[in-house]
C-alpha cells in the first residue's frame, strides 16, 4: 500500500497543509526537511492519530505542557469569524493495487464555552473505499478499523512509522517477544497458528458430537479433552520457562558485555576497601613504631654516653676482685649479735675475751671497706645493665629499622595497588549502573539455574501427557471405527486433523525460514550500511528474534556497539523485516540519521535508494541532518522534497 497524500487541518502546528506523495518508477523516496519544533514528528503523530487515534511520538515537552490537538491560530481565527466550533482533521489517501482508500479522522472542538477549548463530540473515523471505476463505499466503526488492520495493522505500526529515538532503543530487553510476535504477525505465521487452534476446536466439537452418540466415545473424548487442556497448560508453562531462561541468558549476556573489562567491579570495590583498611593499619603501625624508636633513641642516648665509663668501671671492679683487694662481704649485724650474746653465732659456743676483742676490732676495721664494697657491688649490676644495653643497641636498632622498612614497603605497595584500583574504578563513569548490572547478572544466573530445573520437570510431564494423548487418540479411533454412525464424523475429524498437521508443519517451516531469511537480510543491509567493513562477521537472531551481532573474532558484541551502530542495526532489521515479510507497506522514518555520522550517511542514502525501488519511503530531516553527503544522493533520487517552516512561531507552512 502507498500513501498518496496527507491532508492536515487544524492539528497541532498544522493549520492547513497537504503533503502529496506521487509515485515514480525508479524511486519512491519523499523527503521532508524542517527545523526542530516545526512539525516533523507531529506529521508522524498526525498519521498515527488518523489511523489509530494514538499519538505515540509526542515528546515529554508536549505532554507536560498539555498542548491541545487543536491549532490555536485556527481557534483564534474561528473566534474572530464568530464560529462556535473548529474541526481537527487528518485525511490520508492511499492506494493498494486498484483499491483506493481514504482514511479520515476528525474531532470537533467547542471554542466559545467556559473553557478556552473543549472537545465538542467524540472523534469520528471513516474509511472510504473505491475502485478505479468509482463505486465508493464508506465504512465506520469496526468495519473502518478492519480496513486499517488490513493494510497497516496497529500491532505492528512501529515497524512502519518510527522515529530516530526508537532506532536507538530498538533492541532493549523489554521488547523481547514483542519483536517475534510482530514478525509473525507481518509474515502471517500467527494466522497459521490461529487456524491451527481453531481447527483444534472444531475437531473437539466433532469428537463431542460423536461422543454423544456412544458413551465409550464420550468418555474417551472427555479424557482426551482433559489431556489436551493439560498439554496446553504444560506447553504454556514450558514456553514461559523457556522465555524466562532466554530472558535470563540475554540479561546475563548483555550485562557481561556491558561489564566487559569491569567484570569484577564489585570485587574491585571490595578489594579497594580492604586495601584502604590495610593502609590505615599500616600507617598506624608505622606511627607506633616511630614512637617506640624515639623512646628507644632517647633511652639509648644516656646508656651510650655512660657506656665507656661503665665498661671501664666494671673492668676495674673485675681487676680488684681478681686481686682480692676488695674486702669480703661480712655480715656486720651477725658480728654485733655475737658480741652482744657472747656466743658465736656460727658454732654457738661462748666467746672468749680475746675472741670478743678480735670481733670488735674486725667490726671497726671493716666499717669503711664494707661500705665501699657494698657501693661497688650495688653499682656493678647497673653498670652491667648499661654495658649490656649498649651492646644490644646495634641489634635492636637493626630490628627496628628492618621493621620500619618492611612496614613502609608494605604501605608503598598498598598505595600502588590502591592507585591502580582507583584508576580502574574512576574510569567507570556509571558506577551505580555497574553495580546494578552485576547484581542483576548474579540474580539471573541463579534464576536461570532454577528455571532449567523446572523446565526439566515440565518436559517430563509433557512427554507423559503426549503419550497419554496418543493412547487416547488410538482408543478413540478404534471406538469410532466400531460405530458406523460415527463414520462420517470420523472422516471429518481425520480430514481436519490432517489439515491441522499440515498447518503445524508449515508454521514451523515458516518460523525457521523467516528467522533464517531475517538473519541473512539483516546481515546484508548492515554490511551495506556500516562503515566498518572488517569488524563484524554476521547477525544472529534467537527464537525470539533478539538480535546478536557477532564480531569477526567470533564473540558477541551487540552490547558494546555505539548509538550510531545500534541505529544502523535497527534500520537493517526493519528493512529486512519489510523485505522478508513481503508486507506491502510504506516506511516512514522521522530523523533517521540523527545519530549517524557523515560516511555512514552516504551508505544510508545509497541503501535506502535501493530499497525505495520497491517501497515507498518517507523521511524527515533537520536541515543539519540533511547534510551535503546525503543531499547529493537524495536530491537526485527523491520524487518529492519539501521544506517546512514555522510561520509566526505558530503555524507550519511549506517553505
Amino acid at each position: 500500500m502507498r500513501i498518496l497524500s496527507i491532508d492536515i487541518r487544524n492539528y497541532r502546528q498544522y493549520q492547513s497543509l497537504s503533503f502529496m506523495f506521487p509515485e515514480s518508477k525508479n524511486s519512491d523516496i519523499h523527503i521532508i526537511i524542517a527545523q526542530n519544533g516545526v512539525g516533523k514528528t507531529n506529521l508522524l503523530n498526525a498519521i498515527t492519530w488518523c489511523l489509530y487515534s494514538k499519538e505515540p511520538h509526542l515528546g515529554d515537552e508536549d505532554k507536560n505542557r498539555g498542548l491541545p490537538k487543536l491549532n490555536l491560530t485556527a481557534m483564534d481565527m474561528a473566534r474572530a469569524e464568530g464560529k462556535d466550533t473548529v474541526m481537527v482533521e487528518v485525511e490520508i489517501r492511499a492506494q493498494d493495487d486498484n483499491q483506493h482508500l481514504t482514511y479520515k479522522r476528525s474531532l470537533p472542538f467547542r471554542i466559545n464555552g467556559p473553557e478556552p477549548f473543549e472537545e465538542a463530540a467524540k472523534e469520528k473515523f471513516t474509511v472510504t473505499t473505491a475502485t478505479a471505476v468509482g463505486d465508493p463505499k464508506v465504512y465506520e466503526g469496526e468495519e473502518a478499523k478492519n480496513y486499517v488492520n488490513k493494510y497497516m495493522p496497529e500491532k505492528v505500526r512501529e515497524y512502519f512509522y518510527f522515529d530516530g529515538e526508537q532506532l536507538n532503543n530498538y533492541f532493549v530487553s523489554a521488547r523481547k517477544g514483542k519483536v517475534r510476535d510482530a514478525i509473525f504477525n507481518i509474515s502471517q505465521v500467527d494466522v497459521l497458528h490461529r487456524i491451527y487452534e481453531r481447527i483444534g476446536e472444531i475437531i473437539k466439537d466433532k469428537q463431542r458430537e460423536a461422543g454423544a452418540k456412544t458413551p465409550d466415545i464420550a468418555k474417551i473424548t472427555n479424557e482426551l479433552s482433559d489431556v489436551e487442556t493439560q498439554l496446553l497448560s504444560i506447553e504454556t508453562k514450558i514456553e514461559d520457562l523457556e522465555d524466562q531462561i532466554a530472558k535470563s541468558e540475554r540479561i546475563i549476556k548483555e550485562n557481561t558485555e556491558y561489564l566487559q573489562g569491569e567484570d569484577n567491579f564489585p570485587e574491585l570495590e571490595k578489594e579497594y576497601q580492604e586495601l584502604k583498611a590495610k593502609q590505615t593499619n599500616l600507617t598506624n603501625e608505622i606511627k607506633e613504631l616511630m614512637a617506640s624508636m624515639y623512646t628507644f633513641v632517647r633511652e639509648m642516648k644516656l646508656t651510650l654516653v655512660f657506656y665507656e665509663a661503665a665498661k671501664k668501671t666494671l673492668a676495674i671492679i673485675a681487676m680488684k676482685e681478681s686481686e682480692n683487694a676488695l674486702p669480703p662481704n661480712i655480715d656486720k649485724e651477725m658480728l654485733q649479735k655475737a658480741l652482744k650474746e657472747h656466743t658465736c653465732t656460727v658454732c654457738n659456743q661462748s666467746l672468749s675475751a680475746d675472741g670478743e676483742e678480735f670481733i670488735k676490732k674486725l667490726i671497726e676495721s671493716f666499717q669503711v671497706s664494707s661500705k665501699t664494697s657494698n657501693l661497688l657491688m650495688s653499682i656493678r649490676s647497673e653498670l652491667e645493665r648499661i654495658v649490656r644495653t649498649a651492646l644490644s643497641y646495634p641489634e635492636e636498632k637493626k630490628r627496628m629499622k628492618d621493621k620500619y622498612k618492611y612496614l613502609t614497603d608494605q604501605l608503598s605497595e598498598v598505595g600502588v595497588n590502591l592507585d591502580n584500583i582507583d584508576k580502574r574504578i574512576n574510569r567507570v563513569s556509571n558506577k551505580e549502573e555497574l553495580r546494578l548490572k552485576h547484581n542483576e547478572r548474579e540474580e539471573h544466573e541463579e534464576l536461570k539455574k532454577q528455571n532449567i530445573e523446572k523446565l526439566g520437570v515440565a518436559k517430563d510431564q509433557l512427554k507423559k501427557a503426549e503419550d497419554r494423548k496418543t493412547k487416547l487418540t488410538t482408543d478413540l479411533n478404534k471406538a469410532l471405527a466400531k460405530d458406523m454412525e460415527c463414520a462420517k464424523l470420523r472422516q471429518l475429524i481425520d480430514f481436519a486433523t490432517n489439515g491441522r498437521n499440515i498447518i503445524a508443519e508449515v508454521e514451523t517451516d515458516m518460523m525457521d525460514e523467516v528467522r533464517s531469511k531475517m538473519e541473512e537480510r539483516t546481515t546484508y543491509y548492515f554490511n551495506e550500511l556500516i562503515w566498518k567493513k572488517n569488524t563484524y562477521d554476521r547477525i544472529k537472531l534467537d527464537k525470539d528474534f533478539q538480535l546478536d551481532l557477532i564480531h569477526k573474532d567470533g564473540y558477541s558484541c551487540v552490547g558494546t556497539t555505539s548509538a550510531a551502530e545500534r541505529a544502523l542495526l535497527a534500520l537493517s532489521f526493519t528493512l529486512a523485516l519489510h523485505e522478508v515479510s513481503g508486507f506491502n507497506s510504506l516506511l516512514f522514518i522521522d530523523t533517521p540519521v540523527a545519530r549517524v555520522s557523515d560516511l555512514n550517511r552516504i551508505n544510508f542514502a545509497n541503501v535506502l535508494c535501493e530499497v525505495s525501488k520497491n517501497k515507498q519511503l518517507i523521511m524527515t530531516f533537520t536541515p543539519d541532518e540533511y547534510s551535503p553527503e546525503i543531499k547529493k544522493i537524495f536530491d537526485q533520487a527523491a520524487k518529492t522534497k519539501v521544506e517546512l517552516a514555522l510561520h509566526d512561531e505558530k503555524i507550519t507552512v511549506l517553505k
Partner: protein
Amino acid sequence: MALNKTIVKKVREKTAQEPALGDFIVGLLEYESETHGWFKADYNSFLEKACEEEESDANS
C-alpha cells in the same frame, strides 16, 4: 491483509497429493486474512465442503 504467498505455496507443496486438503487450508487462510467474528459455523462449512470434494475426487 493480503495473503502471504509463501505460506500458500508451502501449503500447496505439502498437499500436492491431496488437493482437497490444500483447498481447505488455503480457503481458511483466505478466510482468516479478512476479519471475521464468529468462525465455527464457517469452519464447519469449509470442512464439510472439503470432505465432500475429497470424496468426489476419490470416487472419480
